């Protein structure tokens, strides 16, 4: 299973790079940092219960990408899983395309349009509460960024979810440590994040966000570690992960790769994928 996730994540990274390169768009760094998390959720045998042939299946798990700017990653994951065609990915960020460069709910498999940060977790709380009140078994998973922690609305939700014992809610934080104009500690230091969230009464797990086995073990959505509490997974990641020239470099929040950079990046990824 690990090799399948690895292959899925690798292919996801390659497709996201191609999309951003073709569209001359931005935010590839954050798409690459969350690729392994998405692989464990959407890859073969992944943790999310979804049906690509029936995107609105009532019993599906609800996944929200709150860091909507990194949508090249989720679009690629949805295409690899069969929700949309691989060809459609090439329309990314083109005029008239459904695949706008922040996540759009008009795309099969996307529950919520996002882009303005701090929206995903409140909606996720509502979904999880709705499932609880209706005795529905599906789970809600929200993927956020660490820079997004600046938004106060998230902290309203961090207060809310434990109050209502939403143990069917999972918040995953892609903690790549870099936001728009600097590192997270430079802009608004959120550490000690785990301690803060424990104090907010969440069940907190810290994990290497690129360790596929660890991610799979941690994201056991049927078995939250502490019944009665929502779970937050702080995934320590590397912005631009998988492409050395992009790793831990702030400018890849904005830049799109040149032709040569794309070719080199794909070559590196393909070699490591099959290693």
């Amino acid at each position, binding site marked *: 299973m690990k090799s399948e996730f690895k292959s899925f994540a690798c292919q996801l990274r390659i497709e996201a790079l191609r999309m951003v390169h073709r569209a001359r768009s931005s935010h590839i760094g954050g798409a690459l940092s969350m690729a392994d998390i998405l692989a464990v959720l959407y890859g073969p045998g992944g943790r999310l219960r979804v049906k690509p042939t029936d995107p609105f299946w009532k019993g599906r798990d609800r996944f929200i990408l709150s860091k909507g700017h990194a949508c090249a990653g989720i679009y690629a994951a949805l295409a690899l899983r069969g929700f949309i065609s691989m060809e459609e990915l090439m329309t990314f960020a083109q005029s008239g395309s459904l695949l706008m460069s922040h996540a759009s709910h008009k795309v099969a498999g996307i529950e919520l349009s996002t882009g303005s940060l701090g929206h995903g977790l409140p909606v996720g709380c509502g*979904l999880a509460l709705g499932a609880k009140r209706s005795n529905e078994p599906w789970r809600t998973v929200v993927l956020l960024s660490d820079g997004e922690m600046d938004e106060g609305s998230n902290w309203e*939700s961090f207060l809310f979810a434990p109050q209502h014992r939403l143990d069917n809610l999972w918040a995953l934080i892609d903690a790549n440590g870099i936001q728009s104009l600097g590192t997270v500690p430079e802009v608004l230091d959120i550490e000690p994040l785990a301690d803060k969230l424990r104090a907010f009464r969440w069940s907190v797990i810290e994990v290497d966000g690129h360790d596929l086995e660890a991610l799979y073990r941690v994201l056991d959505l049927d078995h939250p570690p502490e019944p009665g509490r929502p779970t937050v997974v702080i995934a320590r990641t590397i912005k631009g992960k998988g492409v050395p020239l992009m790793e831990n470099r702030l400018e890849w929040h904005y830049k799109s790769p040149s032709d040569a950079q794309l070719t080199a990046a794909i070559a590196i990824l393909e070699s490591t994928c099959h290693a």
Partner: protein
Amino acid sequence: MRNTFIETLTACASVDPRIFLVVGDLGFSVVETFSKKFPERFLNAGVAEQNMTGVAAGLAMAGYKVFTYSIANFPTLRCLEQIRNDVCYHGLDVTIVAVGGGLGYGPLGYSHHAVQDIACLRGFPGILMATPGDPYETEAVTRALVRHRGPAYLRLGKGGEPQGGPACTIEDQGIRIIERFGDSTLLTCGNLLGFVAPWAKSCQAGLASVPLWGTDERMKKMIRDFISNYRRVVIVEEHLAGGGFGSFVRETLESEPALQSVVRCCALDVSVCQLTGTQDQLRNAGGINIDSVRDAFAR
């Protein structure tokens, strides 16, 4: 109006299991009518309106028909982007309920007034604006909102509003003619219908209200058809002059100068945003008084 709303919503919830009420830690001695009867469909989201509105969107996505409820500015301005992005852009079945819309909480000060709410909300796609003028219209509009599917904004008075006309039923958006009198009429938007109803008589004018409206082409046609029946229509609303219902009417008539000349607006001056006082005092200070209405008919 707020008690009428809660009582009507509670009655509707008895037969519609999807109705869910979310409050922002406000509604003491009002919302208990609902919360005691339907605790499983009630939520106090706390003093956290951004989360409250996001939660409402999530509940709607999970199949509920959600009403968020708080004082004037809190469920509207404090969480405006959540209303736009999460509720309206997704076409979700959420009604934002503001109690004390306008100057209802006058003595509490301008922090608690909502005199820009219509301007902020009416441009959001698909939103249905519910601006009942009195308790009778509140009951009718609440029932219409329960039947409605999609985003809506319900702007209520705080309480104690006089009736401005007879009991009614409201099936759809449009202008409700309460009394015809000659070729002039007052057209009210919102909670001052009963307050200004006597002015219509003293100005020898008819009386109409707009309890439910959208900004689509169908509503625009209704407005044009209505205005074309009169020599003078004076719109009165407890909202700043810029951006409210009167502004919408003027935008609707942009290419029809003959109809434009029929319409006068009597709305609040922006100076009211620096004042505190009773609702009646503030209406008067802001420019909504019998003299300004008479002047509007004369001009």
